[in-house]
């Protein structure tokens, strides 16, 4: 049974040629095979959002996606968010300015989720931000600062900005 095969994943604008078992999740492919450990593994069961990445321009969970499902699609991780010269994305900058983390473990997922949340037009009020960011759990309880950072970044970016 052919369970191991060559897979080409397009991550942050670059092709990665990997040999993967069919069971490998996108999250594990990123962290263990593509050398991109920025996406975090919290629960590995879809219950925390730490593994949030963008596939085809939409936020999804890396831990419940098989790597092979993502073949042929554009994948963006936290490592691909800043400009090539290192300038932080507006959401990253807002998280730093608003001190929107303590331990930082949930932060890559929060930021990837927030970028999409703003792009979807779901950052119109604090209540809307709380609802549409609810898929990202923060064990340190940095929520008030996270909401402030998303609100601020949304105001700077405007609704419907490109990812």
């Amino acid at each position, binding site marked *: 049974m052919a*369970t191991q095969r060559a897979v080409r994943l397009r991550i942050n604008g670059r092709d990665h040629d990997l040999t993967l078992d*069919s069971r490998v999740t996108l999250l594990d492919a990123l962290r263990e095979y593509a050398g991109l450990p920025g996406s975090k593994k919290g629960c590995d069961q879809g219950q925390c959002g730490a593994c949030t990445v963008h596939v085809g321009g*939409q936020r*999804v969970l890396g831990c*419940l*996606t*098989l790597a092979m*499902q993502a073949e042929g699609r554009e994948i963006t991780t936290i490592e691909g968010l800043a400009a090539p010269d290192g300038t932080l994305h507006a959401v990253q900058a807002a998280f730093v300015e608003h001190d929107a983390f303590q331990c930082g473990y949930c932060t890559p997922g929060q930021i990837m989720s927030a970028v999409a949340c703003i792009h979807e037009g779901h950052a119109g009020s604090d209540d809307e931000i709380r609802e549409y960011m609810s898929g990202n759990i923060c064990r340190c309880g940095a929520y008030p600062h996270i909401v402030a950072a998303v609100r601020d970044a949304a105001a700077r970016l405007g609704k419907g900005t490109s990812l």
Partner: protein
Amino acid sequence: MRALEYLRAPDTATALREAAQPGTRFLAGGTTLVDLMKCGVERPARVIDITHLPGLDEVTVSDTAIRIGALAKMSQVAADARVRTVAPVISEALWRAASAQLRNMASIGGNLLQRTRCTYFRDTAAYPNCNKRNPGSGCAAMDGLNRNHAVLGASDACIATYPGDLAVALVAFDATVRIMGRFERVVPVDQFFRLPGDRPDLEHDLAPGEMILGIEIPLSDALRRSHYLKVRDRASYEFAAASAAVGIALEADGRTIREARVALGGVATKPWRARAVEQALAGKPLNEAVIRDAAAQAMAGAQAREHNAYKIALAPKVVARALMSAGGIA
């Protein structure tokens, strides 16, 4: 996780042909299947990725019905402006489910087939005794922690709750599911789901290798004036402790209930149509006393276990509040 083969099907005919091989499962968003493969509950030898099949992700709204393809995403349907106008309950049941990330992944077909969140069912290592996973082995929840378990539709074999939200709205409004196997057939969603009885491992009407092509919801006045209310342990990203999908159609006088629709989630072993409540409302004036009286009938036949009696008290209140919102008297 058991070793498996991954295949991507280019079209429906190929997917159906490949699915005829034993040990094969369709893979849509993967948010149920991949999760349960990790737990060891699902152990397919092959998965067929059906997300690239053409033409199955469309939402169409005609003068008589909404049709939703099995591969449409939860987020896509929730945001559809036409659906929000003619069937608010469908949009609300979807955007109040799971999280934004999960809704971007999860398909409508997969959503119907999501499996119970019973912790004993999911914990294969610690609990061999689960009749749903391992027929005839007993039920660890019966005398275990059963706060989230069903008070309606349970059997001596299984008390697991059907956890989904969308299907609750679908049974309230007489939706049907279109299925393709050796031939095409259409089944009312209410009949699609089975009661556990003595075979809790058999959850629905789909034969191995059959594919859901889509669902159809007939339009009605009650659907246009509909609402989904979901009460849970936290404000978002949580399954229902109790939920209600309701709709009300009024007579021309604007105060008499012509027809009501009511179904319950989070309290039963399958999406639960509450016809007794509907009948108690038909022809009555729209007011709080009438609604509270009718809602009291929602729990007829309910049976509590050690930790879930609160659902019997909670659900009628959820039904009443949902009906008052839909009726515009909340």
